[in-house]
Structures are given as C-alpha cells and as structure tokens.
C-alpha cells in the first residue's frame, strides 16, 4: 500500500477542521440569508418561494438553500483554498466520457477465429489450385519452338497474351500512342481511381457510374486481347479462327 505524503495528510486535516468550524458558523447564518441572491434569476426565486409556501415551509426549497450557502461562503473567512460550498474539499474537475481514452467499439463486429474458419478455406483453395495446375501440366505441354533465330521472323510474331491488347492497338495508332501513351494513361488512371472516386459508399447501387466506367475499361482491354489473340493471323491480318485456324501460343 502506498504511503500518503505528509503534506497531503496535513492539508486534509486542515480542511476537516475548517469544515467543522464552518458547519458551526453556517447554521446561524442560514437564518438571516437575504432571499434575493443577485446570481439567481428573480422568477426562479419567486417560484421556489411559492413552492415553499405551499408545503407550509416544512421543506427548504433547493434554490433558496443554494442561495443561502453561496451567501454564507464569504462570511466564513477561514475557508481553505479550493473548498466548495458546504466546505467540500473535493471538486469535480472534468467528466471523461467512455471512448475518449479507451477504444470502446460502438458496434461490436461479428468475428470468427482465423483457425479453423479461414485457414481451412485457404488450405482447400491452395490444394485445389495445386491439383488443377498438376492436371493441366500433365495433359498440356508448355510450348517450346525451334531455337531462337534472329534472321527468321515467324509470321505472325505475337507478344505474350496480356500484351496482345497493346499489339492490337499498334494496328490503329502510332507506336508511341499505342505502346506508351494509352497504357500509361490507363495505368495512371487505375492508380488514381481511389482519389478520383469521392463517393464513400461501397454499395453497388450507389456506384453505378464507377462500375460502368470500370466495366468499359476492362471490356476494352479484354476485347482487344481476344482480337489480338484469336483473330489475328499471318502479317497480323484479321482472320477468323474457325476458318483460317488458330495463330496463338501461350
């Protein structure tokens, strides 16, 4: 147990003495208190007086009592510094609301244990993914063409599938626009998306514009990639895969 410092004990003792002395002094003072304290509005005093008369003066109305105590305070010369009405030596400094210091969650979140609920799902997903890759790898071989030959350009020569959208754009625009400007702007717009979209809702019904823009964006690339992959043949000319065959390697 902590020891109480001596000066605090002294101060408490002094306050106790003061309170005792004041209790004696206040009792006679209460009798001749002026009813009109300047700090209390007159109509409130009237009301409290009326209430007092009604009850036959048996009870002391609150407003008047406060007036009495406040009025009595200056009379008691020896009050300790900081002593309140009635000689109280404690004061309410501030009210600390819950949540200002402790992090009190206003709405509790429905949570589950990561193990086993999430880990089991992840484990199954990983196993399924491995099994899928394993079976694909057994039945479909990765392409390995002839040794690279800088003097013999294959026809058509195509980029990897995810760049075929760009290669498709090359047929329409200057290489700088198709290869640098358009993908650069698309990537930059993607990065800036959260800073452009000021709508704070994540409800699909509130986000019809954002959803449409993104869908158009994704479809733009998907269509280009599909055309570049399946509908471009020798010389990167337009072909129909069902008529002229497939010119596509993964």
């Amino acid at each position, binding site marked *: 147990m902590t020891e109480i410092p001596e000066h605090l004990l002294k101060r408490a003792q002094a306050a106790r003495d003061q309170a005792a002395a004041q209790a004696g002094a206040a009792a006679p003072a209460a009798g001749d208190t002026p009813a009109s304290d300047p700090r209390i509005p007159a109509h409130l005093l009237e009301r409290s007086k009326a209430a007092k008369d009604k009850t036959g003066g048996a009870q002391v109305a609150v407003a008047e009592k406060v007036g009495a105590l406040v009025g009595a305070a200056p009379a008691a010369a020896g009050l300790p510094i900081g002593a309140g009405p009635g000689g109280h030596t404690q004061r309410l400094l501030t009210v600390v609301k819950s949540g200002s210091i402790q992090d009190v969650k206003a709405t509790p979140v*429905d*949570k*589950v*244990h*990561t193990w*086993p*609920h*999430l*880990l089991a*799902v*992840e484990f199954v*997903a990983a196993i399924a*993914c*491995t099994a899928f*890759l394993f079976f*694909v*790898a*057994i039945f*479909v*071989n*990765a*392409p*390995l*063409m*002839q*040794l*690279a030959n*800088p003097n*013999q350009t*294959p026809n058509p*020569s*195509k*980029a*990897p*599938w*995810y*760049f075929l959208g760009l*290669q498709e754009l090359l047929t329409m625009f*200057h290489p*700088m626009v*198709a*290869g*640098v400007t358009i993908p650069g702007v698309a*990537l930059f717009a*993607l*990065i800036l*998306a*959260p*800073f452009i*979209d000021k709508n*704070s*809702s*994540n*409800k*699909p019904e509130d*986000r019809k514009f*954002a959803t449409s823009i*993104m869908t158009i964006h*994704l479809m733009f690339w998907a269509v280009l990639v599909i055309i570049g992959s399946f509908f471009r043949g020798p010389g990167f000319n337009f072909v129909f895969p069902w008529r002229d065959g497939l010119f596509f390697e*993964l």
Partner: protein
Amino acid sequence: MAKVIDDPRPTAKERLNQTVENVQGSQAWSSIFRPGSIFRKGYTDSPRNRSYVIMNSVLYHLHPVKVKRHAVKVSYTLCLGGLSFFLFIHLTVTGIFLMFFYRPEATAAWNDISSLQTSVAFGLLVRNMHRWGAHLMVLSVFLHMARVFYHGAYKAPREFNWVIGVVLLTLTLLLSFTGYLLPWDQLSMWAVAVGTNMMGYTPVFGSQVRFVLLGGVEIGSETLLRWYVLHVLMLPFVIVIFMAIHFWRVRKDGGISGPL
C-alpha cells in the same frame, strides 16, 4: 502348463499411440511446435487454443487471431488475393527447381530446356506447372483487382493499398514477361522483340530504354542474362517487399473490406 499372462501384449494401435505420445512429449518436438500448435501434445479445441494457433505461429504475420465473419465467405473474396500469393509461392518453388538445369546463355539456354524436358525426372511436368502457373497468376491478379474494384474496396482508408496493388499487378506482368524470354525459342525471342520495340517508342529517351532492357541494340546473349537476373532475383525481391506492405496494410486498414 500354460503360463497365465496378467498383462496381455500391447496391440499395434496401443504401441502407435505410445510412440506418438513419446515423440510429442520429447523436448525436440515441443521446441519446434510452440504452445498452441495443433501438433503439440494435449491440443484441445478451445477458443483459447484457437487463438494460440495463430498468435504463436508465423501465420500471425499474415492473419489476425480473429477475422470478420463475412471475410471467410468464399463468395466475397473468391480467394483471388490468397491464390495470387499462393501461385507466387508455387512459382518460386517450381522456378528454383528449373534453375538447377538452366544456364542463361544464348548457346545453352534452349538446349537446357530441351534436355530438361526429355532427360530430367519430372522436368517436363515442373516446367509445365511453372508455365501454366505463371499465366494463372497473371489472370488471378487481374481478377483480384477487378473484384476489389467492384466491391469498392479501394476507398478510404484503403486508397494506398490499392496503389500498391496496381504496382503489384505491373510487377506480375513484368515477371511473366521476363520469364517469357528464357526458353530462348522463336516464340519467346520474337514476343520479346515485339514488346521491347514498343517500349522503344517511349518519348525522349526511348532508344535508351530499349538499350538498357536489351543490354545492346539487338536481342542477344546479354539480353538473356539481363532478363534472367530480373526474372529470378530482382523482380521477385521487389515484389516480395511490395507484397509485405500490401498484406500489412490489409490488416492495418481493418481487415478486408465489406460487407457490402
């Protein structure tokens, strides 16, 4: 006269149980599996132990002890982010295997791949898995991005994690593209020729960009070495750092988004 046996000989099952108990009780075992591990002796399914499974394992770097109930729903995430990460691990493992049999030289690369397929046990299988895994990863990262967008999960406070995600998408494409050259066949060489020609049209310093990427004015042995180092060392290093920040931010921003 037959001797009366008080203690019948232990059955195989009892012996097995005894052995398991001895192993699990050993100092080595309990030094490997920290308190709360499901492999530890006396693990029982209780909320406290479920918390310890995460808190006392390396998984605590990835997952909190508890997650929002809707975060477990496969229909919300489609597991795409997790699968992208898993595919990255898968590609690292199969890629390390391939590195044992591959030299990044114009004279050796194609022959190495060819003999890997024909004379190395599981060589063809592992190469196939690496190849299809890589394409699948590009696809899953792309779909993950689409999923995150359609859920509005890039909104505050997750804006920066979205930016990191776009960087990760770009790095994934670069990783796939640099790996594309390594077999050194007609397909890979000319695909890279198309790609780097396009980058050569970058304004102002296009030809310099192309020169740095190719290690010369034309695709050659230097290009192969350069793209090999990018593919097996530099880009994985960079992407791991960005992934670490990405996963950390997922947790710091209050777990995955939603529910809608």
